[in-house]
């Protein structure tokens, strides 16, 4: 089966500073991929670049194929078919991402009219249906409200509704539930998985909420400093992270019960993209770093079926983890 999307060696640089340094990803139809990682590691930029939504001064290289067709640098008319229709995106700052002077109805209907050959009353009915779907109360009346009249979480749900409007084959959800309380978050995620099941929609879920990722994704990719550093089925990753960064990340999760302890953050700071270390970007912060780590950047190497990691000390780190677990 050919992949729905395949990204090869995607690189992005702003003003000569590389922020994405060779990202490879593939996504099958109907699959849910979790994308987690450092804040600022390039999760959002990856998809903005893929859809040609970065500002003009961004230098994008590599290749992004959708159903085998290159979409990087495709003509605008072609991209307009892809965007919203085949690939929809939920943006990270929903409050700013909605047009402040247009009603929600207008913004929703626009997406519907563009990709769903609907017209007139059907569009309006469908807009209402979508709002109800994402749990906006009093949807009929609220359709004619403006974004600033909604709470943060409501705006986020409108954003989701808008992304779903085009019945996309791939949904890129960039932190889609950060502003939602747990019950609504559960409802929304449930909704997304229903749609995925029924429509065979693939999804990329970018989130910092590892719990959400764990529950909703088949596979997870971990990003650090513009690269994917680990890549695994989600149950395996959370049970058994290999890359030291992934380990640190999971370790930093605060507990919901039990005694409170001081949270453990990964020591050190994120490298400045303008002054990337020569070798592994995580090496300066890595407890297991060896001399070799500083020399060359490790490539993503398979360590098991369906798993890959970019760390020359992968084995060691695994052992270290097991050691900790054994203690």
């Amino acid at each position, binding site marked *: 089966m050919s992949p729905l999307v395949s990204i090869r060696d995607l690189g992005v640089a702003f003003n000569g500073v590389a922020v994405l340094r060779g990202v490879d990803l593939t996504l099958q139809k109907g699959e849910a991929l979790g994308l987690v990682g450092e804040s600022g590691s390039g999760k959002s930029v990856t998809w903005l670049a893929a859809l040609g*939504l970065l500002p003009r001064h961004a230098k994008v290289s590599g290749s992004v194929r959708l159903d085998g067709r290159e979409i990087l640098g495709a003509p605008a008319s072609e991209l307009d078919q892809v965007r919203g229709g085949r690939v929809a995106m939920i943006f990270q700052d929903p409050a700013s991402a909605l*047009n402040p002077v247009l009603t929600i109805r207008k913004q929703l209907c*626009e997406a519907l009219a563009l990709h769903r050959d609907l017209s007139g009353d059907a569009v309006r009915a469908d807009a209402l249906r979508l709002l109800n779907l994402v749990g906006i109360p009093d949807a009929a009346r609220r359709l004619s409200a403006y974004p600033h009249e909604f709470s943060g979480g409501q705006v986020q749900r409108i954003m989701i509704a808008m992304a779903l409007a085009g019945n996309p084959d791939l949904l890129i959800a960039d932190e889609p539930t950060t502003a939602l309380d747990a019950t609504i978050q559960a409802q929304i995620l449930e909704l997304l998985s229903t749609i995925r099941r029924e429509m065979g929609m693939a999804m990329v879920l970018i989130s910092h909420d590892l719990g959400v990722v764990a529950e909703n994704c088949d596979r997870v990719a971990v990003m650090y400093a513009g690269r994917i550093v680990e890549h695994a089925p989600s149950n395996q990753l959370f049970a058994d992270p290999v890359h030291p960064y992934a380990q640190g990340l999971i370790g930093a999760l605060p507990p919901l019960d039990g005694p409170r302890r001081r949270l453990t953050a990964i020591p050190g700071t994120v490298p400045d993209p303008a002054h990337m270390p020569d070798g592994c970007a995580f090496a300066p912060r890595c407890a297991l770093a060896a001399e070799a780590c500083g020399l060359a950047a490790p490539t993503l190497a398979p360590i098991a079926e369906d798993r890959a990691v970019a760390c020359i000390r992968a084995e060691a780190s695994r052992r270290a983890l097991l050691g900790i677990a054994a203690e």
Partner: protein
Amino acid sequence: MGRYFAIRIGRAALTIVLVVTFAFVVLRLSGDPALMILGPEAPPEVLAAFRKAWGLDDPIWFQYLDYFGAIAKGELGRSMRDGRPAIELVLERIPATLALTLPAFVFKVALGIPAGIYAALHRGSAIDRTVMITAVAGFTVPSFVLALLLVLVFAVQLGWLPSGGQDSWRHAILPITTLSLGGAAVLARFTRSAMLEVLGQPYIRTASAKGVPWRKVVTSHALPNAAIPTVTILGFMVGTLIAGAVVVESVFAWPGVGRLLVVAVANRDLAVVQCILLLVAMTMVTSNLIVDFLYGFLDPRLRAKGAHA
């Protein structure tokens, strides 16, 4: 809501009174209508008779009260030149002026706004530069030069169109063109700049991500957000519909209100000036009221806030 309108209408009325009063004082204090209407060689006793007849010898406050007294009775005064009711004189000219300014207004909008949008769309390209240089030239070249150039080309050289006068619609083409070009240039500049302001906003990216074609992103997402300056300028343009075509009217021998105003001011023919100002101020105030209202329409965040009205 009632209060909202009451305040605004009160303000509008006050503005008009202010305009009329100011014009009254200035015109009365800055020159003698008798001398200006009858000319410098008019004999002194003729001047005196004229002044007396029109009450120009009375103290200014007396004349002022007199004027407002007459207005209260619905009398807008008579032209000192031929004694005709001023309003008659002005109303007679209005259709002629509107025949130029209204179509010109439409063309300004139809030409200027799309040009501005187009330039913004192709920011930095050769098209953008051309549009903007043309626009700058468009409002910098004095309109009488533009008018005369058009006449030289289309009337004198090519003989396609008449050079002046008011006899048929063909006579209106060149004046309308002249008026439109300058205004369109202004609108183009404002629209482009406001547009660029908005094109970097995140919601523009959202619209693109929805698959909205760029053209439509610009017209239906960016434009409403960028509309405030353009709408403001349009408001002023509407306000000048009545008396704003002085130069064009005189180059094209098109007897409109603008020319009447200039002549009336030069003659200190107060009643006529006041009549025109009254109309101008009324249009201006109304159009700006509408603009204010439109702000709220364009940007919901500007509508009256708070729950308990």
